[in-house]
């Protein structure tokens, strides 16, 4: 893998520091250890901070091979976001309500390549009250087309209190990112059953 330029690494270090300062995020590797294997980290979504907190929770060497799947209109709005998107986070940008689901899915498979990992929020949108909505089908299709991927459930806690949807100023409480045991779609498992199992895998990390 090509080493990112110094400016990108410095920006990343600054963002990670800032994120940890604001969110006090603690990474808990509960069901697996950090690994350079190709993975899809899928998490509950309640805050604009979710992605950076999850990304910051990864060890530095894994951050550069882990990219988010994100909405194009959000990341290309304004020069700062565009710079971050192009140089640091390198998200796979999906047009909201744009192309067909199939096209978007092809885009994600392309972005994965042979060594990248993904960060995915399968609810599709941020929740207001911290409840976890039903998952969209992308996770299931990923697991079917790339059975070698490890799908890692991640529970992000308290971020909806730190920067809830609709607020611009954060309140610096403490949060955590808990990583669970990887899963994959079982042979013969239906889409609905798998998506619900994946959702429960995220929720089950709550009590542990």
């Amino acid at each position, binding site marked *: 893998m090509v080493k990112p330029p110094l400016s990108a690494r410095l920006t990343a270090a600054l963002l990670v520091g800032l994120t940890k300062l604001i969110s006090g995020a603690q990474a808990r590797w509960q069901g697996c250890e950090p690994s350079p294997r190709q993975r899809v980290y899928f998490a509950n979504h309640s805050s604009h901070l979710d992605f950076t907190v999850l990304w910051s929770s990864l060890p530095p060497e894994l951050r550069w091979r882990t990219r988010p799947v994100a909405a194009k209109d959000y990341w290309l709005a304004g020069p700062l976001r565009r710079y971050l998107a192009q140089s640091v986070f390198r998200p796979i940008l999906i047009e909201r309500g744009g192309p067909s689901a199939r096209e978007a899915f092809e885009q994600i498979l392309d972005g994965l390549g042979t060594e990248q990992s993904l960060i995915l929020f399968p609810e599709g949108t941020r929740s207001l009250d911290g409840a976890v909505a039903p998952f969209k089908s992308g996770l299931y299709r990923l697991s079917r087309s790339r059975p070698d991927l490890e799908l890692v459930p991640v529970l992000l806690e308290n971020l909806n209190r730190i920067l809830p949807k609709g607020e611009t100023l954060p*309140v610096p409480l403490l949060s955590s990112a808990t990583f669970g045991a990887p899963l994959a779609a079982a042979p013969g498992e239906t889409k609905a059953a798998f998506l619900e199992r994946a959702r429960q895998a995220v929720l089950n990390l709550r009590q542990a």
Partner: protein
Amino acid sequence: MRLMNDPPLLWLFAGILGLLLLASLAGWIMHRAAKTPQGRATVDNFNARTRAWWWMVAIFAVASLLGRMVTVAFFGLISFLALREFITLTPTRPADHRTLFWLFFVILPYQYVLLALDMYGFFIMFIPVYAFLFIPARSSLQADPENFLQRTAVMQWGLMICVYCISHAGALLFLPIPGFEDKGARLLLFLLLVDQLSDVFQYVWGKLLGRRRISALSPNKTWEGLILGGATAVGVGAGIWWATPFTPWQAAGMSLVIVVMGFLGGQTMSAIKRDRGVKDYGSILPGHGGVLDRVDSVCFAAPVFYHLTRYFFLP
């Protein structure tokens, strides 16, 4: 208030250094002697605590070396970390978001600005009066009445304990006691030393001789630990009277106040932790839990010690 120009302060630090060396040595010997897994765990916990102590003393020493303003900023940071742990564990609602922003970024810093500017009159009533009224008023603008009084009380309480009470420790630096001006750092060190030694010795004596548990709230606290540990701390406090404006008996009396208040603070914060179903407020300090777990006793001891000193030793 330079550390080097204040020999008694230097002696206090030297004494603390000696204690820490002793603790590290004891930890090293116990580590080699421990055989059972349970004994090992206790020793590991002891050593983690000692290491954290080294850090805390080092940070505090650097802060005193750099002067009063740095110490004020240091206590501001402690308040921030404690308030963050406290609010994280207590239920608030989305409607409180903006009020909480004020708590962290306006009220807390302003309390420490008042302290740094030595504006005692406003420092002493800013939070109990103005912040007290502001919090419910700000939340009421969000039109979410559910559990309104409870949410308000939680924020007010967190602010009082984590900001108002802790800021009184820093306020000791500004007490204009005749003949003792600019020597407030010794008073602060006296408070912290007696308070923390009381904690440590209650733990040690409790482990060695403890039988009768004080309450179900904290399984590790026993009457034997409290009395012997408290007596040890009072003894140390009386023994360093020469660094304070107190006579030996007065120093013993003040130490007793610190010990009792510290104990009550620990019990109170334990009750809250039990209610929220956690053991520690955080995990920032290895072996100690969070910042709030370490300073819970100071929260109660600092304001009372401050006011008694102010009342009896200021003309």
